[in-house]
């Protein structure tokens, strides 16, 4: 019984990792496109000290490297958690295997 619980937990972790992998581009989209709106509102206020190009440049490289880092971590974890080559694919939900 304890072993079964252990396996379930692993499958659960793997599925959450896959969720994270799928959500990564969403995080990327938010981070990459957010400045469009912020910068536009900057232009509206006009008078205040606008955020300069160099700051945005730094911002982009920082989020870029951050996204790369997170992806590297998630990808590694995914590869490590995936069952050995050929047995089952990470995509297969455990319940779906019997159906085929």
């Amino acid at each position, binding site marked *: 019984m304890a072993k079964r619980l252990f396996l379930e937990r692993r499958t659960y972790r793997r599925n959450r990792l*896959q969720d994270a*992998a*799928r959500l*990564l*581009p969403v*995080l*990327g*989209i938010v981070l*990459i*496109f957010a400045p*469009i*709106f912020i*910068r*536009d509102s900057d232009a509206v206020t006009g008078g205040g000290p606008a955020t*300069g*190009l*160099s700051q*945005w*440049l*730094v911002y*982009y*490289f920082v989020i*870029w*490297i951050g*996204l*790369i*880092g997170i*992806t*590297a971590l998630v*990808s*590694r974890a*995914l*590869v490590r958690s995936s069952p050995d*080559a*050929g047995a089952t*694919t990470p*995509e*297969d939900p455990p319940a*779906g295997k019997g159906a*085929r």
Partner: protein
Amino acid sequence: MLSFNGLVAVCILYVICLFGVAFLAEKRAAEGKARWLNSPITYTLSLSIYTTAWTFYGAVGSAARTGLEFLTIYLGPTLVFLGWFWVLRKMVRIGRAQRITSIADMISSRYGKSGGLAALVTVLAVLGTTPYIALQLQSVTLSFSVFASPAPFGFSDTDITAVWVAGGLALFTIVFGTRSLDLNERHPGLVSAIAVEAIVKLFAILAVGVFVVWGVANGPSDMLDRIQASPVSQVEWNGARWLGLTALAAAAILCLPRMFQVLVVENADESHLATAGWAFPLYLLLISLFVVPIAVIGLELPSAGDNPDLFVLTVPLSLGQDGLALLVFLGGFSAATSMVIVAALALSTMLSNHIIMPLWLRATRLDDPMSGDMRRVALTARRLSIAGILFLGLAYYRLSGGADALAEIGLIAFLGVAQVLPALVGGILWRGATRTGAALGIGAGFAIWAWLLLLPNVAETGGLIFGMIENGPFGIRWLSPATPLGLQATDPLLTAMILSLGVNTLLFILGSLVTFPSPLERLQGAQFVNVYEHSRPLYGWQAAAGTADDLLIMAQRIMGTNRAGRLFQSAAVRQGRAGDMPEPTPDFLERLERELAGSVGAATAHAMVTQITGGATVSVRELLAVADETAQIMEYSSQLEAKSTELAQTAARLREANAKLTELSVQKDAFLSQISHELRTPMTSIRSFSEILMQADPVDDAARTRFSRIIHDESLRLTRLLDDLLDLSVLENGKVTLHEDAVDLGEVIDRAVYAAGAQEEGGRLRIVRDREAEDVALWTDADRLAQVFINLISNAQKYCDATRPELTITVHTLPGRVEVEFADNGTGIPPRQQALIFEKFARADTAKGAPGAGLGLAISREIMARLGGGLVFLPAATGTRFRVRLPAGALRAA
């Protein structure tokens, strides 16, 4: 500053190095030793062909003109790669499972192997790529001209440079791209050369960046200040363009034929994607890290010239860093060449598979695309395509004359190939997508793109301004590319993007919703969308050792242990690995496949081998081929089975006939001795008595009368024997004349009993009859029928060996026929001889002592056949039993 000739020498040296790397890689891969070739790093580096010379030089120019906008070209692909688990992994898996050779093949396979759709995508790809190749040639010649201002030859050096570069690239691509039609269309030599080029260009741009930040400026913080102060900072940030270009770049990396080639077709191992998912964005980040600093410094330096597109080259050059500039030149050269090589390879595969080969097959009416001859044709088609594509690029470049309009073509080409996106992504995520929808969407998007962007650009590039473009066809202004739908668009690219992709997606979805897909299309749709259920991932070289074992097991099952063992041993010896398992090299696999094909058929063998080595699922077409083969084999084996049954039956019949013949021969010998005895006995007495009569001293009258009677009787006996023989011969030849009349069966039996002498005084045989049953009227030849009955009765007289012989004659009147049975109470006929009793001269062993020639039953049977009835022997436990069958006709006529 380097001389033109020196530069050419460096270039040639560099190209020779690339050839060497490619050659070495091919060699190592053929030996199965090139582990580094299958590393995720090589895979990631090969993806770098995304950054072409256009981005290598142009990114700095773009930064100088539009600030951060150049980042979109890198951020789009970054987003796609961050989500590699979502779309890219699926594409790679499908590409592997379906053995996809190009983006056109992918689309056509998904939509039921549609040839038309593949051709459409191919045309789209060629149109989108040709100007791009021209762009690469332009950037190389431009960078050449920066180095060597005075032309060494009489004519324009830029032209001749472009020709040489194009020719060299064609040669390289042909040599390493079309060596053979591989099992899986992978090109290790080419990929390794590209990986080297990727390192060169990354190193070059990083070197310039480091030089600029730490050599010209005083470190990062000073650099940031300078950026803030430079005119680059003043550029208006266009949010719509930021969004649009990022999306466009993201779409392009999925749809560009060359990206598809390295991403999917050349992928050796699915797990490489997990590395590329973060490593490729990292590569893009590094490539773009110093773009803005270089642009800012370039703008600061008056000596860097006024073309920001060449700042990467002119900044180090103007600061006296010749070595650095040379490195940059090689980086740009690498970027241009690697892109052209892969693009030409990908396009040539598409052109040859989807346009040239179908036309060729239609023209020559060959229907076996796997024959050796067709492979040669395919290779030739590819080589010609590569040359043709490079020639097209060159022609486009020469036509445009290196106009600035070429620079815009990069994004225009992106949008062109992005028309495939709805059909591609829809195809792998949505089972409801249909061929009609895909064709409508791609066709419409393609048309809008060509009309709104390509045509005006070509016209502008060629220096031609059609009134049509300005005012619309036939003066219809809302159709004019300049003002589509009457919109005064500020950004033609974004307008065209929204229009073409919007209409494309809309038609794709609507077309798919209202049409019904063909069965093959639905099947392929399920295979694509649910690819993870139908295939397993391939884990490159870790799986290779296992593969050889699997192959051996499979081969043993089919060819037998000894033959498979010998085959594997000889392959291992040939690979220089005696005593070990052979590596599954293409050569070995081909040989194994051929051997297996001898046992199970070519299609089955191919499917089995690729199932093990490629992780591919079996496609429908292969399945059909396998089914065909199986059906043929089954039909053949059932034919064999039928034949062997037939043979067995014939053999049994022959054995039977042979046994009968042997028995007959024995019987005949017995008969001959019998008949000669039968003939000689009367002849002897006739001769001796006639001799006595001829003697001089005559015997008395009484003796003479006695002798004459003996002679007479014996003559009669001879005549009877000869009559019997004649009678039988006549009956057998069917020349007998029947005298049919109305008769009573009882009377005929009476006659027969009387004639046989069975009721005479001293007759041993008792005859049991049923007179009432015998009262049947017949229409037949009474004499002949009586002859048969006489024969049967006299047989009983002669052969019945019971102490009180008894013959029972019973008559059965059945519907349509009458049967008369003659049964005695003797020991009967031995089973061995039952089959022979009706043969001529046959005499049962029990009848040895009795007189007779053995013709009676044969004659009787012939008579009954003539009368339309039959005479059969009935096997019985005791006694001999014959049945005379009289036909229906005889009864009816009465």
